[in-house]
């Protein structure tokens, strides 16, 4: 449980980190919370020759609301999002942050690190997909903003260039009378979800004007269940339409069998999670306060 030897570099600013990346070459890795990278290094599944530590960069961890929306610094740990009054206005963010692994991991792991890792089972990407969030990235040539839908490219592959890093996640507040929910099935707290579902409903006069349903951990990237969304859009949200959406989501899922569950079981979980997520999202769209917790085996 000791990593291979590596060179350690401490970045003093986000800009310096980007410069270091371009100087050190493609095998250098960024160290944020280290909740994926450090275990991989200790198991010697990864052996980067250079680590660029972002943890001493001042002012890179924050959650703040301004005219442009909710801004979350890339180095903000999950626990700080969980506890943030600014993020509390968007309950799905709390569902996600509060449900990531256990308290130790939430205290170390960061939203930027999680997105950059692009683990197919990561929690943030499905949630941010329902919110149409933007990811601000910085490289030696400057900044660019990538919509989250373009940010996740493949399993463990993001749109980041080799010398780019995430600096901020930008989330527009969803319109009033909309509600979202994120729910996962986990065998125990510290493990990745067997399946998860992030949903958002925009309601108007009892009719769903817009819906977003994104599934996690059941494909190489988050799966947007378009037919499930269509089953709800411009319809009343009833037990029947929710059922139809959940069934459509089951069909959209493309899970691999592993110790977290067989493929058929994960599909079954998708229907259960989408149904439960929609029920909560609907209540929240109506202005009800609903606490939501993941389902643990």
């Amino acid at each position: 449980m000791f990593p291979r030897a590596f060179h350690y570099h401490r970045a003093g600013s986000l800009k310096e980190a980007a410069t270091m990346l371009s100087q050190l070459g493609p095998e250098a890795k960024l160290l944020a919370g280290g909740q994926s990278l450090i275990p991989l290094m200790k198991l010697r599944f990864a052996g980067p020759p250079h680590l660029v530590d972002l943890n001493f960069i001042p002012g890179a961890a924050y959650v703040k609301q301004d005219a442009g929306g909710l801004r979350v610094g890339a180095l903000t740990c999950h626990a700080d999002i969980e506890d943030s009054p600014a993020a509390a206005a968007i309950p799905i963010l709390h569902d996600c942050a509060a449900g990531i692994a256990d308290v130790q991991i939430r205290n170390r792991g960061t939203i930027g690190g999680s997105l950059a890792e692009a683990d197919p089972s990561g929690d943030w990407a499905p949630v941010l997909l329902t919110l149409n969030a933007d990811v601000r990235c910085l490289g030696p040539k400057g900044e660019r903003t990538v919509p989250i839908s373009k940010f996740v490219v493949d399993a463990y592959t993001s749109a980041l260039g080799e010398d780019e890093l995430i600096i901020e996640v930008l989330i527009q507040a969803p319109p009033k009378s909309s509600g979202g929910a994120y729910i996962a099935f986990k065998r125990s707290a510290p493990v990745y979800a067997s399946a998860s579902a992030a949903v958002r409903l925009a309601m108007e006069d009892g009719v769903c004007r817009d819906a977003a349903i994104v599934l996690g951990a059941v494909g190489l990237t988050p799966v947007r269940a378009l037919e499930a969304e269509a089953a709800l859009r411009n319809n009343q949200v009833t037990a029947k339409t929710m059922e139809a959406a959940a069934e459509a989501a089951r069909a959209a899922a493309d899970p691999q069998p592993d110790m977290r569950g067989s493929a058929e079981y994960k599909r079954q979980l998708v229907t259960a999670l989408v149904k439960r997520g929609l029920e909560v999202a609907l209540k929240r769209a109506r202005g009800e306060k609903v606490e939501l917790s993941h389902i643990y085996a």
Partner: protein
Amino acid sequence: MADQDKSNGQKRWVGQRVPRKEEGRLLRGQGKFIDDIKLREMLYLAFVRSPYAHARVVNVNTSAAEALPGVAAVLTGREVESLTSPFIEIGPDQCQKIADYPMAGSKARFQGEPVAAVVAESPRLAEDAAELVQVDYDPLPAVTDAEQAEKNESILHENAGTNVVWRGVFEYGDVEKAFREAASVVEIDRLHFHRFSSTPLEPNVIIAQWDNKDGRLYYWCNNSFPSFAIQFLAPHLRIHIDQIRVQTFDIGGSFGIKITNYTQMAVCALASRKCGGRPVKWVETRTEHMLSSAHGNERTFLNTRVALDKNGVITAIDSRHIDDCGAYPRYEPLGCVIWSQVFPGVYRFRNAKIDFTQVVTNKCPVGPNRGYSRMQHLWFLERICDICAHELKIPADEMRLRNYIRPEEMPYTTPNGCVYDSGNYPKMLEVGKKLIGWDEWKRKQAEARKDGRLIGIGIGTTLDSGTNNFGQSQIINPYAPFSGNSQGANVKLDIYGEIVVAVGSCPQGQGHETTAAQIVADLLNVTPDLITVRTGFDTERNVHTGFSGTYASQFAVSGLSAVHGAAQKLKKEMLRLAAFTLNAKEDELELGIGAQGPEVRVRGTERSIPYGGLANIVNVNSAVMPEELHEITLNCRYIWRAPFKVPDKAKKYGNLTLTYASQLHIAVLEVDRDTYVPRILDYVAVDDCGTVINPPIVEGQVYGATAHGIGAALMEGCFYDEVGNMLTSTFSDYTPITSVNMPNVKFGDIQTPSPHSFNGAKGMGEGGAAPIHTLSAALQDALFDKGIIIDDSFNNGDRVYHLMQQAGKGKKPARVKPRAVPA
């Protein structure tokens, strides 16, 4: 805190909620564990392990590793073979042809088996060098299924010529007659008890030093059965057993899994010798622990037939069992007989035939995992009880009352000659039903069914047999040189009057310091805090016997009997010496705490001598002793021997264990209609371990065993793919149970004192895996009217989902065949 004993006014500590003496140290993080020990010039060992489940080791190239600066030595499996003799095999015949070495020489037989070991100046360097060892493998077909292994298509140990380790038929009564006369026969095609383990907080850790100054081999380790380990190590390393000194300190859990770490102890010793006697430390990683330490036994029960009379009383069982012990037998094939300690479980049937086979497979070798070998059999019996009850439409509680051994039949001799010392199973059922609110839950269950909700209520009754008769090994191998059981202890008054107890156990959280102090405090009439208890094994303390260690639910009987015997001897000597110094008769004397501390005094007078005064005379003032008192040492060693006989090997008959603690659990669960997860709604654990010495220690063990069992039933399993890759070698995959997954457990107890122990106590702690039986039963109850038979001990949401999808398709896995009732 202490009660007044009515007979003589003395305070009694046994039975009180005495806080654990070890608690302060352990809760403050001040325990002494092996990884806390750092020795001068110590080196660190890392293993190179086979990625294949079954492969020839063609070549091991160590030169790159050896060339790395800081590497002291590399040891290969072939080298180990040339330096040592194979470990002892306990089994007969073909087992004796198995050559078990601690590292793979020419062939690796399970994924994670060590093929080389690297020793370096730091743990990181050792891991760096391990990556540089180049091993060429020639993969062979792997066999991971016991029934497949039995066909001998791919043989693990060519010398043995077969994968079958042991086979024997256990038959008692008149089975065929019982089937002829049965009112009904229930047939169950296949039941399967899955493989899981114990995941102790502290993995295996060893420091070995083969000291070239005195030629001795020193171990600081966390082996939980060291007297067994040295019996295996000495012939393997070709040295005298007295050359080995083993010390254990605090141990972070074993549950039996650390019994077989003697294989790694051997490698560390050879590595130390190769490095000129420098100490070598090995700290197992969690992945190594999951992959290659030891797992529990997996067992398949085939072609089971159960004969019942018209009242649903089981009269006979006929079944074939195949046990899977992984790649090497090691502690096996003892498990092939150990299950028969609880041959009929808690039931009265007298006729049974169990055809028992054990095979090797390309999986991690098994070790005596908590509930070892008995829990598989008890689960089998509980499955039979519930399946028969459902098939015959008898309520589960009623079925048990009709079949339980009755309290008035105790002590009860089982069909295979075991003597159940005491117990009251109907009473436990009564207590359990009351605690859970049985009638209320039955009502709620019926109501919920109307809404399509699947609620099940299940009972598991089980046994925790403790203090083995090692003579049962002779049922496996008539030439095995083991029988009986014994434990040692020493109690002394040290020079300034300190009371010091030494025991041959190596507790891993069982509170031996406290319970031993309670026993001695009562005898010497002092408080437990005045007693120092030296636990942790040390060959040099000379209080161990060949059976010493901490395993198999026995300390309350074997360990405390030894402590009690030694303390009695000491007390006798103290009274004799005090009678001389106080010029009184022994029967005029009493022990107690006076103004100056513990003293012996002449009853009703001021004449007394402090314990320190007695110790002074014997140790440093002996000229005042008359010659006839010279035999007094105030340093009393006592070996307790269990009253066992050698079993009848041919008939497989005899008493195999001294005490039988019992557990009755009741669970209410609901199958979630969306996720299919069996959710526990209510849970009761009733325990009977005879006279309780320290209630919080017993309760702690019951809660721990309950969590372990619930984890095993719903979450934890050691699973392999068809080519022998282990799929659960990390906690992310194995998912050991955590508090998030635990229900609240209601605890109840009854006490039926054992007539077989000096204090009425029974060994406990393993708990008979009651939750596994109970949750299978509750799930069966929830799903039976869907035509589902719970035929596996592991039932997570995924499995329940598949059971429900497949319900009603194919042949029903269990059937009742009514027969004409004979006149």
